[in-house]
């Protein structure tokens, strides 16, 4: 009898709770997605009159046709991709000796990389603005790429080091015996073998750069404005005719990263867990 109850009740509770979590996670996204394909009049009315017949992508089209939104998406893409590449190159170069080689004061390096992860961006934002102004880099892609790379590198190094640590020494030793240089061993053996980990790290860096807001807000004014900053400007402005346009922009700001997460979710899960192992 107890077993029977258990078998009957367990799935009900499991699915009810799982359903609640799915709704909790998806509802805010689904609502903005709904708003982005319906005319404002439909969801402003009480009760909302959502209709399949009115579904249209024209708000997306309208926003993409606006040069500043298209430019913001392009800016975010350039910045995030460049940050990702720099993070991987510099990160792999630094993670390799930390994982494999003799390094003077290695512990000092490891501690420094942990401490630099803790520094909140609010401390850096004013001086960073002044430094970038001094370097005449304000409102350029480069300034944001530099800032994001610096900020993400400690995480990236840590993740890559943890992935490299899992690769057996013998593999590398064999490559070295076959005449591979140390750098050759890094790029021909370590990185390919750590493949999934490297993918996870790359996605992590890309998303980190794409989603950043504070530095984008302060360091860009016109030409380098990323999509997160553009969206925040749209939300608070009263000049747009239709809230569906803002909703569509919000969707445009998350579609690339959400797509990445859905396609590469297995790698990401591993990468995230690896990033907090000390």
């Amino acid at each position, binding site marked *: 009898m107890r077993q029977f109850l258990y078998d009957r009740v367990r799935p009900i509770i499991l699915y009810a709770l799982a359903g609640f979590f799915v709704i909790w996670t998806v509802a805010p996204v689904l609502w*903005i997605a709904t*708003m982005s394909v319906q005319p*404002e009049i439909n969801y402003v009315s009480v009760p909302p009159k959502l209709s399949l017949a009115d579904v249209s992508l024209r708000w997306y089209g309208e926003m993409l046709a606006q040069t500043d939104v298209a430019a913001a998406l392009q800016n975010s893409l350039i910045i995030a991709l460049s940050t990702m590449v720099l993070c991987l190159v510099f990160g792999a170069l630094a993670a390799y000796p930390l994982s494999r080689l*003799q390094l*003077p004061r290695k512990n000092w390096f490891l501690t*420094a990389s942990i401490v630099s992860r*803790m520094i909140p961006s609010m401390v850096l934002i004013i001086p960073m603005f002044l430094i970038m102004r001094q370097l005449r880099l304000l409102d350029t892609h480069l300034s944001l790429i530099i800032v994001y790379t610096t900020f993400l590198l400690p995480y990236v190094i840590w993740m890559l080091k943890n992935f490299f640590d899992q690769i057996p020494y013998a593999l590398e030793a064999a490559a070295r015996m076959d005449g591979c240089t140390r750098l050759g061993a890094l790029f021909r053996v370590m990185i390919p073998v750590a493949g999934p980990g490297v993918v996870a790290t790359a996605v992590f860096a890309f998303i980190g750069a794409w989603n950043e807001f504070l530095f984008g807000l302060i360091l860009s004014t016109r030409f380098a404005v990323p999509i997160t900053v553009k969206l925040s400007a749209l939300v608070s402005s009263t000049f747009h005719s239709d809230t569906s346009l803002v909703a569509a922009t919000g969707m445009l700001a998350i579609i690339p990263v959400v797509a990445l997460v859905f396609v590469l979710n297995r790698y990401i*899960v591993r990468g995230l*867990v690896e990033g907090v*192992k000390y």
Partner: protein
Amino acid sequence: MDESKFGLLLTLPTIFLVVVFLALPITYAFFMSLNQIELTISPDWDFVGLKNYTGLLTDKRVIDTVPRTLYFAGLNVIVTTLMSLCLALILNEQFKGRNWIRVFILLPWAVAPVVSGVMWRYMFHQSYGLINALLTSLGIIDKYVVWFDNPTVALSIASFATAWKALPFSTLIMLASMQGISESLFRASKMDGANIFHRFRYVTLPHLRPTLIFVVVLQIISSLQAFDVIFTLTRGGPGQGTVVLNYLTFVNAFERLSIGAASAMSIMLAVLIVLLSGLSIYISMGRKGKAKG
């Protein structure tokens, strides 16, 4: 080339970036915090020593943010910890569709905090919020509520939005920790006649403790850094209702242009966060030790 020199060479690009764009700005911020810099009045730096720091303790605006920040952090910690614990327990069970749910719950992690602020703003919007529509159709309220007019409600929504975003990550680390519990412990406890609650209380929970504390500390840190979500959700409103510590730093720096005072605040915040992070790392070192032992 000798191995350690070669290793050092490889880390040079990182060292360069960290020194120029991390260490230098922090030093810069520290010097600014020792000066009175009111850009609305003049561009001059006026050395005042630690006055900006002592000034924080008597500044009414700073003091007002303390209960708000505590409430925000408290709610965020409770919601995130309980929900991620519950979700991790579910995902640790075998059932059909589990892998799909695992993918879906990652969604908030990918969404930029700024966008999550927009989403929650639209969920609770006074004229087109889903919450208003649902509550009305269920007959719970008879006319649309202006949720963001009430500071406590607005602050709670901000906290929920932050917890929403934090759920996937904290669930993943809890799940990883749960999967480290050896199956034989469960079998042994089952043989001893333990039911599902006993097993949770005496096997799962003790094992999870360091991870739970880690999640709590992590959420305190993220609450102290809350900015993006509030910026698009409420802009600090109604009045000063959702101005938490980190948000006030931003307002002081970029709206009031009190650079010295803002720097002092941000340095204090950074010290607090570094201390808390140190604690969280200490805990997760314990986590690792436990997993091994």
